């Protein structure tokens, strides 16, 4: 019961994601939103502002149509929609990272159509292997830092940044432990619960989130491990939306044990070293995150990474969750699928959209996939 109560806390946060941000704003703190993915929240935090993830909406999109073509992904259309609707009026600033052509152009539209006081574009290097990337990224982080200082009126001292990084490292550690727990004790909390906890971190006070996750870890640690016969699956793609997909997987006899999602494992990423130059350490973290369609490493290939991910998690199959119109994912898809096939890992691609995905069709695909792997129904 304690577990359920704890999970409910995370659920409530995700159900009303901007509640904490609005409260902070009312209390006089500056609030800076970030779009997925990879914005260094530590800098926002160290500048004294409250960082909050802007992650689209499952509500219908109308207003955005006047500014952004319907063949942009529903994640970015949804973010813009929330801005236009006034849902994000609490923001003092927003940072839009350049992850794809849509985010690259969205910043201009945002500036034109919305009155957010501080709007910035976080321009990460698109190559991650060569020395120039790290030098440049350090400079870009310094630029972002000074813009944030200007927005909040608070200098980002080394001391403050180091403290913020420690808070974030602790949070990542807690979430990593939860992942590990779920991977070996799949029967204790549901896949949806796991991902809800991760997503809640994007909207909550970090220290509070860490404390709650630690409490959860303690409680679930007391539960007798159960032998779970369900099919172990990995997810690859952008976001686990619509969220019903996770429930569907479990209803059909599966359980999610690993992923490379923006709203999942990619959010965790590696920790930031606090012993040396902090901006350099933040740059290092960014360049050593897990592979992603938006910035591929030529050295650490994404296909190899995914095969290892599946094997490492002792998963039996891969579900590609691709947002309709997401180009980076689609360009990688053929070769990722091929790598899966060659490794003997069954895979399926589900094309998803926020708001209007036809769940019935998704269900048929997923169910057939599970049946194919010898699960329910075969």
């Amino acid at each position, binding site marked *: 019961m304690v577990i359920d109560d704890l999970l409910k806390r995370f659920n409530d946060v995700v159900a009303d994601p901007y509640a904490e941000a609005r409260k902070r704003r009312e209390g006089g703190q500056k609030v800076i939103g970030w779009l997925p993915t990879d914005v260094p929240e530590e800098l926002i935090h160290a500048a004294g502002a409250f960082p909050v993830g802007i992650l689209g909406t499952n509500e219908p999109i109308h207003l955005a149509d006047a500014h952004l073509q319907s063949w942009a992904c529903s994640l970015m259309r949804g973010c813009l929609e929330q801005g236009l609707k006034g849902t994000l009026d609490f923001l003092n600033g927003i940072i839009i990272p350049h992850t794809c052509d849509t985010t690259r152009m969205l910043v201009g539209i945002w500036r034109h159509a919305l009155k957010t006081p501080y709007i910035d574009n976080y321009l990460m290097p698109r190559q991650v292997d060569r020395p120039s990337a790290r030098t440049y990224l350090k400079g870009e982080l310094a630029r972002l830092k000074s813009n944030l200082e200007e927005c909040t009126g608070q200098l980002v001292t080394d001391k403050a940044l180091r403290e913020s990084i420690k808070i974030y490292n602790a949070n990542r550690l807690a979430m990593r432990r939860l992942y590990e727990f779920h991977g070996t004790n799949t029967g204790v909390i549901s896949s949806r619960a796991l991902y809800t906890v991760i997503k809640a971190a994007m909207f909550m006070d970090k220290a509070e989130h860490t404390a709650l996750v630690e409490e959860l870890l303690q409680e679930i640690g007391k539960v007798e491990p159960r032998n779970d016969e369900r099919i172990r699956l990995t997810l690859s793609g952008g976001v686990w939306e619509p969220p019903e997909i996770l429930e569907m997987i479990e209803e059909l006899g599966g359980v999610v044990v690993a992923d490379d999602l923006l709203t999942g494992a990619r959010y965790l990423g590696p920790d930031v070293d606090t012993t040396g130059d902090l901006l350099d350490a933040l740059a290092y973290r960014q360049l050593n995150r897990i592979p992603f369609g938006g910035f591929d490493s030529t050295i650490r290939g994404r296909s190899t990474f995914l095969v290892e991910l599946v094997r490492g998690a002792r998963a039996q199959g891969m579900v590609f969750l691709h947002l*309709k119109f997401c180009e980076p994912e689609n360009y990688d898809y053929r070769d990722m699928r091929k790598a899966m096939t060659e490794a003997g890992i069954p895979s399926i691609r589900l*094309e998803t959209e926020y708001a209007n995905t*036809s769940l*019935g*069709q998704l*269900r*048929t*695909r997923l*169910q*057939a996939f599970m*049946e*194919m792997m010898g699960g329910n*129904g*075969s």
Partner: protein
Amino acid sequence: MYVAGIDIGSIYSKVVILQDNQLIASLVQRTGGEIKTASRRILEEALETLGLKLYDLAAVVATGYGRISVPFAEKQVTEITCFGRAMVHLYPEVRTVIDIGGQDSKGIKIDENHKVEDFVMNDKCAAGTGRFLEVMANALEVSLEDMGPLALQSKSPEVIGITCTVFAESQVVSLVAEGRSKIDIIAGIHQAIAERIYGMLKMIKIEDRIAVTGGGAKNIALVKALEKKIG
């Protein structure tokens, strides 16, 4: 032992009853009304022809898009797995099943043990499905049943791109406005659907032998166009 299978499709519902693995009755009806009651009605009608009652059945399996709304089924299984299973009984040598349904088109690859090895389905867009043919038939004011036979009469089919139903519809309407032959347009539509389905099938690599099922299988022009594409 009697068992029944019920398939609630988007347009038609179908029931088969087997006694010791032998087909003893079948029934096809338009899917109408609430699925819960409609599915019960069609099954009871089929049972009636044999003088049986629902409780005489040892097991009922439901499939089709309405499968989750069949309350009395022990098991809900997707069409995809069902097709694989069905081929054991009907055509054991079949390795690829092409299903052209009302809402979905599917390609299903079956291995030697009659297990589904891989499958593909059309994306959300209706292009390449029975629904698409219906929309086109409406736009051309031709009955759906006549579409296939009319297409066969064409000597020079129009080239029609069908990436999207809406686009295709407006293209068809403008071809009509230009005074192009309806028969050639219809033939073009069939070729376009066949191409779309063929493209999808390439994702699973087509293997001999091939079975075509679903409402689309009844459309001779569509099957011929597919045959030509596959070779």
